[in-house]
């Protein structure tokens, strides 16, 4: 496309969406904290909104949701887009206009940006898809944050249902929307409300519920974003952006993981958790050991809870599916496949129970607030490290990890499984360092280094998968009693044998990749001279 001149930004709406238990919501609605800061008692109102889209979900494809809401005698048409940054309070573009008739009209906003993004959508193409009926109790809150700045926050308790295609879904949410002031106030309020009732971050929007309900459209898995960093930034700011990005990555995949149709959902959540843990390790000199350990505990717990589902996904897709054992292997493999499907179902039940549970909710919101409110400042963080420029910190970190990797890999060809596993862990640490800080040294050398590192890591990963698969196959087969037992055992044998043959190839390639990697210039050293 030909270059455009920059178009004006649509207005942003900053809000934090939370949920609690039924009792919790009741406590929150009547708590002293709210009463003390509210301008008025909670005002009740009923909101009915109808959501529109084309038969081919054109708007949803663009990450947009269009609704017309009846508010008294007003008809308000709103289009909401997806969040811009990765902070937990969603800053979503929102267009709003009053209509004279209850018929959707994208031109009514008078915003060319929106129309350009959507493309040609004729009014007759927009159909009513679903409706949300909400009882909203709201009030305005005045809040002064710790830095002494004032803010105005709208607090709304929503109890309602989404209805469409003869189906219905009930929900209950608490929305904190920033009307004036800085988002700091939003987080402080949320932090204070946690003391009143257990709170969780609600990742599903009303439109999201609707699309899921009537069209089975659910958010797919999302890969990691890369936070914007630069050399002169202070470590504290860089750290904050990295944590934010990784936490968003985690939350963005929550729905996909729960649904479980795409193995990427659980996988990306685990990748996000590893990013978080590696970031904690990288920044431990700044935040202190106690804080790093505390959060590491929680993230490790969650990785563990998602582990069985991940292992079975990999086993099913990469291991079982790739085997071509001919006729004799068909029945045994089919038996193993059935066992795998059953185990996978149970593993995903565990995933769902975990993500709906209290500990996860505490962890997610707790960490989000820890980051946004920079709680490390009062928890034994090292102010000297926080203030150092990110560039220098990055060079030190990368150098340390690189040296450790070289040491561990000294006799690579003769390493046993255990030592190779240790090396793999060290390698991952270096990889994360490069992923986070590579952007600061943007160069061909950095890209070459990252590529060689990734190639080597892939080969090591394959070797690991083979080892895991063997263990899994044997354990699954071990569960089967009676007539199918022999078949299951044979199936396991086929899996182990098949992939063991491949393992030799991986070992050789890994050796070659390791040698190639060792000869690649560590890109951050160039930057120093």
């Amino acid at each position, binding site marked *: *496309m030909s270059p455009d001149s920059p178009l004006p930004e649509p207005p942003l709406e900053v809000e934090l969406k939370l949920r609690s238990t039924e009792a919790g919501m009741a406590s929150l609605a009547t708590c002293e904290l709210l009463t003390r800061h509210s301008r008025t008692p909670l005002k009740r109102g009923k909101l009915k909104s109808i959501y529109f889209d084309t038969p081919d979900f*054109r708007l949803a494809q663009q990450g947009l949701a269009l609704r017309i809401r009846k508010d008294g005698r007003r008809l308000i048409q709103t289009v909401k887009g997806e969040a811009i940054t990765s902070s937990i309070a969603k800053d979503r573009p929102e267009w709003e206009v009053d209509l004279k008739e209850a018929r959707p009209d*994208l*031109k009514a906003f008078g915003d*060319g940006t929106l*129309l350009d993004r959507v*493309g*040609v959508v004729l009014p007759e*193409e927009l159909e009513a898809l679903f409706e949300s009926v909400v009882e909203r109790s709201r009030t305005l809150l005045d809040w002064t944050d710790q830095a002494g700045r004032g803010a105005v926050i709208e607090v709304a308790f929503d109890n309602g249902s989404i209805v469409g295609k003869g189906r219905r879904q009930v929900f209950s949410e608490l929305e904190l929307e920033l009307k004036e002031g800085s988002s700091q106030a939003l987080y402080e309020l949320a932090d204070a409300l946690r003391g009143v009732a257990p709170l969780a971050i609600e990742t599903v929007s009303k439109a999201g519920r609707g699309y899921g309900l009537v069209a089975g459209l659910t958010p797919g898995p999302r890969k990691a974003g890369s936070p914007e960093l630069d050399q002169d930034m202070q470590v504290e700011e860089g750290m904050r952006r990295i944590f934010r990005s990784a936490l968003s990555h985690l939350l963005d995949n929550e729905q996909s993981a729960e649904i479980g149709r795409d193995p990427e959902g659980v996988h990306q959540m685990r990748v996000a958790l590893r990013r978080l843990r590696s970031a904690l390790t990288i920044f431990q000199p700044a935040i202190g050991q106690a804080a790093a350990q505390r959060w590491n505990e929680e993230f490790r717990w969650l990785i563990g809870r998602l582990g069985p589902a991940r292992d079975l996904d990999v086993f099913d897709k990469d291991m079982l599916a790739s085997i071509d054992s001919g006729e004799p292997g068909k029945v045994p493999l089919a038996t193993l496949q059935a066992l795998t499907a059953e185990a996978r179902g149970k593993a995903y039940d565990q995933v769902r129970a975990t993500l709906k549970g209290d500990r996860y909710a505490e962890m997610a919101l707790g960490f989000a607030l820890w980051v946004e409110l920079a709680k490390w400042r009062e928890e034994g963080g090292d102010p000297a490290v926080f203030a150092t420029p990110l560039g220098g910190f990055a060079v030190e970190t990368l150098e340390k990890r690189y040296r450790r990797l070289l040491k561990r890999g000294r006799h690579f060809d003769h390493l046993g499984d255990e030592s190779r596993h240790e090396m793999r862990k060290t390698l991952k640490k270096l990889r994360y360092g490069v992923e986070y800080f590579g952007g600061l040294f943007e160069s061909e050398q950095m890209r070459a280094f990252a590529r060689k590192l990734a190639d080597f890591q892939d080969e090591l990963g394959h070797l690991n998968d083979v080892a895991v698969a063997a263990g899994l196959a044997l354990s699954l087969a071990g569960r089967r009693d009676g007539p199918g037992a022999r078949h299951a055992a044979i199936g396991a044998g086929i899996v182990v044998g098949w992939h063991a043959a491949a393992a030799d190839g991986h070992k050789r390639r890994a050796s070659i990749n390791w040698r190639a990697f060792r000869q690649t210039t560590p890109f951050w050293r160039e930057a120093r001279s």
Partner: protein
Amino acid sequence: MIRVLVTNLKGGCGKTTIATNLAGAFARGGLATALADVDRQQSSLEWLKLRPAEAAAIQALDWRKSVSDESSGVQRLVIDAPANLRMKEVELLIAQADIVIVPVLPSIFDEGSTRRFVRRLDEIKPIRKGKKGVLLVANRLRSRNRATQRLEMFLGEIGMPAVARLADRALYAELATQGLTVFDPQAGRASLQGEQIRAEWRPLLRAIEDEA
């Protein structure tokens, strides 16, 4: 900005009808639209002169002598190319566009020239490299008669199925005399027929948005 070129070396296949109606669709959709006419006969711009003030505005661009660069603020540009151009001239116009739309009639007499044209388009670098898309539109179809079926088979043969299938309607010509398109509400005809006609254009409109 998305720039759409409507072209076919063969005359009479409905280029101007498609170009003007595309422009009408974009304008009706609220997008800042311009229509550029390369033809000496200026059929598109003559049509634009007839356009009533209440209809969604379309900016006129006269490209008879040269390509103008008054495209600031334009979101959708439709270029109407005349028939009987040399391939060199077609190539120059393609350089000014992001997508190429080729109207094709269900006529056995046109098959040879369509096949040749598509082949020659494929030789142009940005098209060969997949950087610019070519969309075929089956135009002036009359029910499921033999000619239509034959066209479908032919397009299948050359590996370029039609993105949209537009029926032959007297309405297009009628509306053209008033400077209107099937997308203008001023069209005033029975709205059900209007919706059916516009529905035929939908896959083309979507494809244009998706290609760019």
